């Protein structure tokens, strides 16, 4: 599938993947089903899908044609199929190759997200912040979910 064209960069749109404090979350991984034209035994052309996981990596290589730039919301790929899939799903916008300053901004946002999550975890542990949405639920529902929450 890799066609080793020039790298293209895609950033997760601002309205996706945000935490409770509205900080942008870094991409952990992207799963995408890529369609590849394939000839059947009978000589008919069809499409066959390949599930692809795009994980964090420091750079692309001949074997690695798509990666998530660590601690950012940016995907780099040299594959036309991956680029097309990312654009079509409406979650990503194509951007110029990110500068060091852009990546630094993403890393800063990631640190803010991590800090916000740690702060909330501490508040919940201390019992200072009951799960807000659960308290909004009707009492019967909230009560019946207690066990489920422990399990999940």
């Amino acid at each position: 599938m890799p066609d080793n064209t020039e790298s293209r960069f895609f950033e997760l749109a601002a309205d996706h993947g945000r935490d409770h404090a509205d900080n942008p979350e870094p991409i952990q991984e992207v799963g995408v089903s890529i369609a590849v034209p394939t000839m059947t035994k009978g000589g008919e052309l069809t499409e066959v899908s390949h599930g692809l996981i795009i994980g964090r990596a420091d750079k692309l290589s001949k074997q690695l044609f798509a990666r998530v730039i660590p601690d950012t919301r940016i995907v780099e790929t040299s594959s036309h199929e991956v680029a097309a899939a990312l654009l079509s799903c409406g979650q990503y916008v194509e951007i110029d190759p990110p500068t060091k300053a852009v990546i630094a901004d993403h890393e800063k946002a990631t640190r803010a997200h991590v800090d916000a999550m740690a702060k909330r975890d501490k508040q919940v542990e201390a019992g200072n912040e009951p799960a807000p949405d659960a308290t909004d639920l009707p009492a019967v529902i909230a009560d019946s979910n207690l066990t489920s929450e422990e399990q999940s």
Partner: protein
Amino acid sequence: MSTGIETGTGGLWCANQAALGTQAATSATSTLRLRKATDDTLKSNKTHGREPYVDGAAYDSSTPYVETVGGDVGQFVFQAQIETGAAIIARHVGVDTVTGASDPWTHTISTGTTNPVYQTIREKTGVAVGPYRAVWWDAIHNKLTWNIGQSQMVGHITSAIQCLKAAEIGSVTDPVATDSGTDPWRWGESAGAMTIATVAFPEIDGETIEMDRAWTSHDGDAIEPAFFVPGRGAITRTFSGAVTDTMLPQLLLALYGSSTPSAGTRPVSQPSFLALKSVYTRSATRTLTLDTPKVEVKPDDILIGTRPQGGLIPIAFGGQALAGGSPMMTITALTGQSTSYIT
């Protein structure tokens, strides 16, 4: 003496395949154990045809033949749990972005051009009798129907399966995946979060979403299909509710282009679109959001009139979801799962 098969026991599992033609192993980490919720069961779809001939006899003795095995093999219904509902939708859609640095992880699934992920589906029926273990593979979740509301208090997903390899006798080893133990989404968890054009309508009493890929399969030189034929699917979404003081203006808007039409106003020529959204909240870290920003509201479903016995006017509000600068549908799930549902 005979013994009936124990239909109350057994299980239903779905796993992602690495590729078409490669059945997922029972140990596949992507395997989900689904909570089957109705009697609907997948079938072999082994169908017979007959060709009559003249042999001088008065009674027909047509030649039977097997037409096909596989293809449209029916459907099953499962309870949509936190771990299974969004995952099966992601496998139907074919994309899932996971964000976050720790629990909760945000899964964002949105419709575009990606293909569904090939599945291996296993079902085991019985314990002492049988058990009958069957596998449907090179399969896709061709059509998903999300159904929840006052008449279906627990979230259900109906999955209609299209497959190339049907009803194969499965391994005697059961999949290792177990039930997550988490409760399925409940209707009450949407309280205050069923919105039309960002406004919550408490009178909405249920919703249905149909996500149909409209794939078929092509029969080649064997009775099993040779390959899938990708179709052009559609997403249809409907809120059910009742005509009330707050809902009436929305209905008038769809018909007349104004929520407060004046005397003499007739239905407008422009179609009507509205954003429909629902959010199911188990806790601050476990939510499911179903967002369709542009849904065609079909005016011919809007019937407002007197009733001899009085009473409620039920209303179905919605229609086909459309693209309009954003995906037709985006599903966002906060879960404890850090890996993509596509793996």
